[in-house]
């Protein structure tokens, strides 16, 4: 008898970054640390923009390529063109 189940945290082992065909590239010079990309990311893998701090105290946005599936929403919502989607190279 096998009961199909998963223990807590087991999804961290399932790295979904390999599903990506396009990759977001973050340009720290254009990033204004508004945090829109971080709020919109469906995988919750963009971090760095500490929303509870003042803008000048925040760091720039960065993504975790282990889990980023390359959906491109961050690039679409960025008002400053700081994120570019580029083809993933094999």
């Amino acid at each position: 008898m096998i009961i199909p189940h998963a223990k807590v945290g087991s999804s961290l082992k399932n790295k979904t970054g390999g599903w990506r065909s396009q990759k977001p590239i973050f340009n720290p010079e254009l990033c204004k640390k508004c945090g829109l990309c971080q709020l919109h990311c469906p995988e919750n893998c963009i971090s760095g923009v500490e929303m509870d701090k003042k803008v000048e105290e925040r760091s720039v946005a960065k993504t975790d390529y282990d889990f980023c599936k390359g959906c491109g929403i961050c690039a679409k919502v960025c008002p400053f063109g700081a994120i570019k989607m580029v083809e993933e190279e094999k």
Partner: protein
Amino acid sequence: MVKKTVEGSFAIAEAIKNCEPDVVACYPITSSSHIAEGLAQFYADGEIKEYIRTEQEFSSISAIVGASAAGSRAVSATSSQGLALMHEVVYAAAGMRVPIVMAIGNRALSAPLNIWDDWQDSIAERDSGWIQIYCENAQEAIDTAPQAFKIAEKVMLPVMFCIDGFYITHSVETFEVPGMEEIRKFLPKFNPKLKLDPKNPVSLGVYAMPTHYQMFREDVHRDAAASLKVVKQVHDQYGKTFGRTYGDGLVEGYKLKDARFILVSMASVCGNIKEAVDALRQKGMKVGLLRIRSYRPFPYGQVAKALAKAKAVAVLEKSYNLGGKHPLYSDVIGSFVDEKKRPVISSIVGGLGGKDVTVRDCEGMLKKLAKGKHFEVWW
């Protein structure tokens, strides 16, 4: 044990209540409405801990799957379109290995719309991994309720016990309903090894890649097939405690010892077949009946053994496989794949949508079958 003269459904509801379910979730539907109604009354009287009034059957089964995953004994009752609406979660329940129990008031499927008895609603779920037990009368259904919980919790597979709509659910008879104290001795508390628990968090049911999915299905298949032993064992144990048995728990033979012509069937129509067998036996015909009680797991070996000496066999079923060979017929034929010899096996589909199968009809079937020729008919 108290003797009561009530409607079958209410006695079945009382038997379910006496198994002390933690959670009941129902959406009443003909012909099992009165089981849901009876359980709701027990909840109103404070005898059942939780009764969820859902907005439709998909929610009922989802609620009891959740309740069972969290370690509760959970039960529902439904029929026909209700069971069809549950279909998606029926498979999920077996795949998740949650031991829920459902009382099915058998009823025809639409269209045309029909509220009367046939087995197609539950037969349509036969491939899901659920254990299915078909009861001949309401007393058997009452006795099967505690057995269903025990079997389910032992093999960690859901169980439906099927009761012919109206013929059994709505007939008033005198029943013996086992009390809560007596059932407690037979049915231990439900205590699953793995459940949803904040102290030891897990996700149940989850997601399986192509590398693993088939393995889970194969595991359910193996355990479901092996549960034949448990169904029999639990039935025997119940018989010892309460003094009522139904064949060997898997199949029941009626005057089979020297029978050359045997009708195979399930559920309430077997009462009429027994009468017909008696009548024809008086005229010297060597006829008999084999009633299948456990439809899933199917007792292939027992069926082949019981029918081995027959000259001709006919399978009477209130279910169908339109455009193919009918389900019970296929299973009976399947019982003989390893045998060198087999009797002539014929197929009869009858009693659909409440069409009466009378004692005289059954006599007619037995006489037709005694001619020894193969036939496939709709009676």
